[in-house]
C-alpha cells in the first residue's frame, strides 16, 4: 500500500515513508536496524513483558534488566515498540491491523508458528495485498532441517565456517559476536530491499525466505571452489602464515597483522624488505635474492619460516602503533590487532565521527555505540532514538490503527 511513486520534494532520508513491522528476534534485529537508521519507521512487536532478546548478556554495568542488554540496545535503536501477544486472538487481530498499514514484515519465528497464529504470509496478504514478508530462520522455511534447533555456534558448524576457523591442534573456534545472526540480518535487509524495489514497479509483494545456514555458507571464501576445482578440502590452519609475508606477529603490547604476500599483496613485499633493511633488522639479508620472487619458493615452509625469523624479532621490539604508522607511511598493508578500546581511540575512527551517542531515558545516561557503516551524501545514516522500552509506543501506534478491532484496542489500553 503506502508505496510512493510520486516524486516528493527531496526527502532527506532514503527510506522515509517505509513502514516496517519487526517481530522481535535476534535473527531479524539487524535487518530492522539497517532500515531504521536510513529513515524507515520500524515497529518492534514484542510479547507482553518484552522480548527474550532483552535478557541477553552482557548488560549495562553488569546488571541484568529488560532495558540493560547491550546487544538489545545496539540492535534496536531507531525503532518503536508495541507489545502484542501473538498467541491470542486479540494480539493476532492487532498484528493484522498493524501489518495492513505496513510495507514489510520481518520475522524470525520457528517455521510454521506464524501460520499457527493465522499470520502466515498468505493470511496477511488478505489485509495488505502489496505487503512483503521476510522470514529469517536457521535453515529456511523448507527442507529436511527446517525445524532443527539452532544457535549461532550450530549455524557456524552446519554452514561449514567452523571447520576452517581455529588452531589445528585443538577444537575449531567460532568467529566472535553472533555473526551468523548479523549476517542473516544483512541478507534479510538486502532481500527485503530488493523486494521493495520490485514491488514499486509491479505493485505486488512477495515472501523472502532467508536461511541462516546459507548466509554462513556465503562466508566460506574459496572453500567450495577448492573442493570443486582441485578436489582439496580446506581445513583450519591457525596462525600459519596464509601466504609468505601474510600473518599475525606479536609486538610490544599486542599484535600486528602484516599482509605482503598473496592476492594483490606480493607487490608490497619489496617495500617491506626495504623498510627492514633501513631499520637494520637482524638477518634482513636472508630476504635478499631472486628466489624470493618465485612463487614456488614463496610457497615453501622455508620461505615462511625465514620471513618469520626476520620480521618476528623486528616486530617484537616495537609497538603496534609505531609499526602501523611507519608501515602505512611506506604504503605497506599492516594493521594493529585492535581491541575494542583501540577501535574507539583510533584517530581515523574519531575523525569520521563513527562512534555516536544517544541519551537513554530508560537508563538515564548517554550510551555510545558504533554509528554509520556508510555515509550517504544526500540521505545520511542517522540514529534518531534510543532502543525503546517494551510497549513504549502502544498508545501512539496501536491507538491510531484504523482497522484495530474494539477488543484489541481495549487490551492495548490496558498496557499489554
Amino acid at each position, binding site marked *: 500500500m503506502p508505496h510512493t511513486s510520486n516524486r516528493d520534494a527531496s526527502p532527506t532520508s532514503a527510506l522515509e515513508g517505509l513502514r516496517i513491522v519487526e517481530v522481535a528476534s535476534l535473527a531479524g534485529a539487524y535487518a530492522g536496524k539497517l532500515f531504521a537508521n536510513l529513515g524507515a519507521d520500524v515497529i518492534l512487536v514484542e510479547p507482553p513483558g518484552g522480548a527474550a532478546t532483552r535478557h541477553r548478556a552482557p548488560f549495562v554495568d553488569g546488571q541484568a534488566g529488560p532495558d540493560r542488554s547491550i546487544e538489545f540496545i545496539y540492535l534496536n535503536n531507531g525503532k518503536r515498540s508495541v507489545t502484542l501477544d501473538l498467541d491470542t486472538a486479540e494480539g493476532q487481530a492487532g498484528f493484522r491491523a498493524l501489518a495492513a498499514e505496513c510495507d514489510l514484515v520481518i520475522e524470525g519465528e520457528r517455521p510454521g508458528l506464524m501460520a499457527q497464529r493465522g499470520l502466515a504470509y498468505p493470511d496477511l496478504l488478505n489485509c495488505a495485498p502489496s505487503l512483503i514478508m521476510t522470514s529469517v530462520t536457521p535453515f529456511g522455511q523448507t527442507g529436511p532441517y527446517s525445524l532443527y534447533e539452532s544457535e549461532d555456534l550450530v549455524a557456524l558448524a552446519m554452514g561449514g565456517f567452523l571447520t576452517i576457523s581455529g588452531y589445528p591442534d585443538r577444537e575449531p573456534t567460532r568467529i566472535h559476536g553472533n555473526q551468523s545472526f548479523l549476517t542473516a540480518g544483512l541478507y534479510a535487509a538486502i532481500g527485503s530491499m530488493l523486494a521493495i524495489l520490485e514491488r514499486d514497479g*509491479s505493485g505486488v509483494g512477495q515472501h523472502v525466505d532467508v536461511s541462516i545456514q546459507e548466509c554462513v555458507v556465503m562466508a566460506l571464501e574459496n572453500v567450495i571452489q577448492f573442493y570443486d576445482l582441485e578436489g582439496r578440502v580446506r581445513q583450519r590452519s591457525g596462525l600459519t602464515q596464509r601466504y609468505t609475508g601474510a600473518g599475525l606477529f606479536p609486538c610490544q603490547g599486542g599484535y600486528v597483522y602484516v599482509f605482503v604476500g598473496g592476492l594483490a599483496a606480493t607487490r608490497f613485499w619489496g617495500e617491506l624488505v626495504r623498510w627492514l633493511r633501513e631499520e637494520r633488522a637482524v638477518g634482513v639479508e636472508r630476504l635478499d635474492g631472486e628466489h624470493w620472487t618465485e612463487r614456488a619458493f614463496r610457497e615453501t615452509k622455508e620461505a615462511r619460516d625465514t620471513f618469520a625469523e626476520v620480521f618476528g624479532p623486528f616486530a617484537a621490539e616495537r609497538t603496534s602503533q609505531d609499526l602501523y604508522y611507519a608501515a602505512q607511511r611506506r604504503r605497506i598493508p599492516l594493521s594493529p*590487532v585492535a581491541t575494542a578500546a583501540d577501535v574507539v581511540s583510533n584517530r581515523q575512527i574519531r575523525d569520521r565521527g563513527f562512534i555516536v551517542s544517544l541519551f537513554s531515558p530508560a537508563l538515564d545516561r548517554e550510551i555510545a555505540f558504533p554509528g554509520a557503516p556508510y555515509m*550517504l551524501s544526500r540521505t545520511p545514516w542517522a540514529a534518531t532514538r534510543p532502543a525503546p522500552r517494551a510497549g513504549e509506543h502502544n498508545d501512539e501506534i496501536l491507538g491510531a490503527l484504523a482497522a484495530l478491532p474494539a477488543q484489541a484496542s481495549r487490551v492495548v489500553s490496558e498496557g499489554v
Partner: protein
Amino acid sequence: MALPLAGIRVADFSWIGAGPFTTKLLSDFGADVIRIESGTRVDPVRLTPPFKDGVAGVNRSGYFTDRNTNKRSITLNLKTEEGRALARNLVTQSDVVVNNFSVGTMDKLGLGYDEMSKLKPDLIYLSMSMQGATGPDKEFIGFGLTIAALAGLQYLTGPADRMPVGTGTNFPDHIPNPCHGAFAVLAALRHRRRSGQGQFIDLAQTEPTMAVLGPAIMEYTVNGTVPERSGNDHPDAAPHGVYPCAGDDRWIAICVMKDVHWDGLRDVLGRPAWADEARWTSGEGRLRDRREIDARLSAETSTREPYELMRALQEKHVPAGVLQRGDELVLHDPQLAARDHWVRLDHPEMGTTINNSPPFRFSRSPSSPTRPAPLLGEHTTEICRDLLGLSPEKIELLKDQGVLA
C-alpha cells in the same frame, strides 16, 4: 517474472574481494553489471587459486568465478586518454558506479564522483576505500585480514589462552563490506526513484566490520570493559561448545541453552551417572563447572558418529550441528540440496562449476545466478558496439592501439 534490478546498469571498476562481492548482489538480481577490467594489470583474484584442475589461467580461478556471476567484462586501458573517455561514456550510461580503489585513484583517472556527477547528476557512486574518503588516515591501505585486525575482529576471535587466531578468512570482504555496500546502493536507488537525485556513498572498509561488532565495542564505550576472547563459550549457558566425535578431526557443536536441553542431552547419552549430579541441574551450576562438563561430554561424544549424534540430539530438540566440511556441504547436505543452494553453471573454459545462490529465496522473483563469471574482456566487442556506438573498424583499431586491453 521481472528481476528486481532489471534495467539498472552498474559500471563496476572494483576488483579483488569486497567490491566484486558487492556487485554480485546486484548482478544476480538482474542489474547489468559491467566489469571494467585491465588486461595488463589483471584482477589479482583471477590469478589466485583454486584453478580448474589446478592449472593457472586468468579465466580458471574459482576464487574469481564465484563472486562474479551474471556480470559482463570489458577490458579498457585506463592509462590511455581514449580508454578513459570510453569509461566516462559507460558511466554516463550507468545508474551506479562501484569502485574499491585507494582514495583519489578514480579522481586521477578523471572518473571521480565530482566530475561524473556533472555528466550524470542522478548517478549513485559507491566508493569502498579501506579507510573512507575523509580523515587523517584515509590513504592507508589494507586487505580483508588486516581490516579484520584493525576493526577488532581478529583480537576477539579464538581461544582465550592463545594468540588471537581470527577466522582464517578475509571475513570483511565476504560479509560486512559487500552486504552493507549493496544495501546502501539499494536504498539510494529507492531515493533516486522518489527524488530524481543520485548521491555519493563513502564506505570505509573498516566500519561495517566494526558495526557488526557493535555489542563488543559497547562493552568498552558503555561499561569500560575491554572484551577478551572466549573461544566457543556462551556468557550464560553451558555446556556450549564444539566436541570431538568418532573419526578423523570430526566435531559436533552442542548448545545447552536451558534445562530441557540438558535433559535431552542426558537422554541421548544414555543417562550416564556423571551427568546426574545435582549440582548440574541448574544453569548456574553448569556454567560454574563448564570445564569439567566439557571434559566429561567430550569423552562421551568422541565415540559417536557425528551425524547420528546430531539427529539424536535434534530429535530431543537440543541445538546441535555437525561441523561440516566443504565437500560435505556440496555432496551430502540434504538441506542445501533441497533448497538448490548450489548452482552449477557451464563456464566456457572451466566447464561446469559450482556457484553460490544468494542465501534467500523469493516467492515470485528468481534469485539464482544464470550466467557464469565472464572471461577477461569477453564482452568488450558487444559493449563497444551496443553501448559505446563504435563501428567494427573502430573497435579493431582501438584493439590494435591497446586501448581495449
